[in-house]
């Protein structure tokens, strides 16, 4: 998290706000509620209280305007700049402006006013931009569901104002996982049109051959319709589809787009009803089979016929000597299977039918 220079903050915990005008995109009551909920996000974790004024000068003056709107800090039409706010202080200090050329909504169909307001009011209270992609104070817009503050945001605002003396139980989002944490484990690994995608918590890393530095992004900012938690994933390059598994459901992605008719239940693949989760999955290009790992067993799904091979489940330990533990994620490259389990990855040779190398899970992330 970052603060503004000189740690600008309100000296009084009772902060006033006033909404000067309204966007025609939403009902007045929706705008009032979005602003009030956005203020509550911050009052939940600090001693701050917010009092609404209907006339006169408030600490935080909230308004909608387009292009040049009176502060010589013009907006830019649709997209691009969505809003801005000024750090605590007299006059324009604390004032919060929304770009009226955006389309403001209550859901994820366009820019969600509540989320943008919560971010901007963070500025109005003294928070500057955070470099944590999972933080509310991260500069780039991203639609998320649930409580918007991450631990990073809470530490930042409490460094200015202290904690809420009467805290209500709030469940902050965990910070973005650190790729070089020696104990890092993966949720799932898949290829996607020549890139490697590694899922962990609400995030994924994207590795590209020409891009040595993995890029970390929120899953929901790329694929809003899939869950925040992925259990397993694999790519079927022939169909240009990536399958995502979470719980008993599966999603089919074609690039950024969700294939029609999904999500579906995993049992449609031929798995028995008692299977409630897939730990890992991997497509073996040389055989056209997809292996699905659950606990100590695995299944073989024939992509060409769309049916589960007979004689499964089979024991992982028996068919993959050296792999006597559950599998978090799996990938396949040029005759080698890579099994990821907790903070270790095992390189298994199909031809010699044994584990030939053991590495740290995050060695794939240049750590």
């Amino acid at each position, binding site marked *: 998290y970052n603060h503004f*220079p000189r740690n600008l903050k309100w000296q009084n915990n009772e902060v006033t706000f006033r909404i000067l005008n309204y966007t025609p995109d939403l009902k007045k009551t929706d705008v009032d509620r979005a602003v009030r909920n956005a203020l509550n996000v911050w009052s939940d974790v600090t001693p701050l209280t917010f009092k609404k004024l209907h006339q006169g000068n408030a600490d935080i003056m909230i308004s909608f305007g387009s292009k040049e709107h009176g502060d010589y*800090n013009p*907006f830019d039409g649709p*997209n*691009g*700049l*969505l*809003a*801005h*706010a000024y750090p605590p202080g007299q006059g324009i200090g604390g004032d919060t402006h929304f*770009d009226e050329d955006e389309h403001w909504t209550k859901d994820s169909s366009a*820019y969600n006013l509540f989320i*943008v307001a919560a*971010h*901007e009011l963070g*500025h109005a209270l003294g928070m*500057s*931009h955070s*470099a944590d*992609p999972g933080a509310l104070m991260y*500069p*780039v*817009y991203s639609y998320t569901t649930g409580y918007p503050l991450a631990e990073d945001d809470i530490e930042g605002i409490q460094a200015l104002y202290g904690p809420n003396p009467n805290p209500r139980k709030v469940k902050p989002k965990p910070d973005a996982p650190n790729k070089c944490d020696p104990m890092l484990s993966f949720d799932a690994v898949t290829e996607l049109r020549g890139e490697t995608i590694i899922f962990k918590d609400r995030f994924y890393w994207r590795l590209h051959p020409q*891009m*040595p*530095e993995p*890029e*970390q992004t929120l899953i929901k900012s790329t694929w809003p319709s899939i869950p925040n938690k992925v259990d397993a994933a694999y790519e079927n390059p022939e169909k240009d589809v990536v399958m995502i598994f979470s719980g008993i459901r599966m999603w089919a992605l074609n690039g950024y787009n969700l294939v029609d008719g999904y999500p579906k239940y995993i049992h449609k693949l031929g798995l028995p009803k008692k299977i409630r989760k897939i730990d890992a999955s991997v497509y073996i290009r040389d055989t056209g089979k997809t292996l699905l790992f659950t606990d100590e067993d695995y299944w073989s799904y024939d992509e060409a016929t769309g049916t589960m091979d007979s004689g499964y489940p089979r024991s992982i330990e028996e068919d993959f000597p050296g792999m006597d533990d559950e599998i978090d994620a799996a990938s396949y490259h040029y005759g080698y299977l890579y099994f990821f389990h907790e903070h270790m990855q095992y390189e298994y040779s199909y031809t010699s039918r044994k584990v030939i190398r053991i590495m740290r899970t995050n060695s794939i992330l240049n750590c």
Partner: protein
Amino acid sequence: AHSFAVPLPSEDKDDLLLAEKYLRRFYGLPAGLQGRQRSSVAFQSKIKEMQKFFKLKVTGNLDDNTLDLMKQARCGVPDIGE
């Protein structure tokens, strides 16, 4: 004098202008004429600041990932500086 300078393709020029505007607004790139932006020291150092902030590969170059990020919808408050 014979010049080897070749006009930038219009798309490159647009990207360069977008980058210049982005860095001026969010990373305090000094205003005014900078000559050939891509080669100026100030321009490269501001790109590095932005790449460092967003945990991108710090190259000082206007690569695709950096440009992609500059084009995303965002808040108008600067990331760095007063």
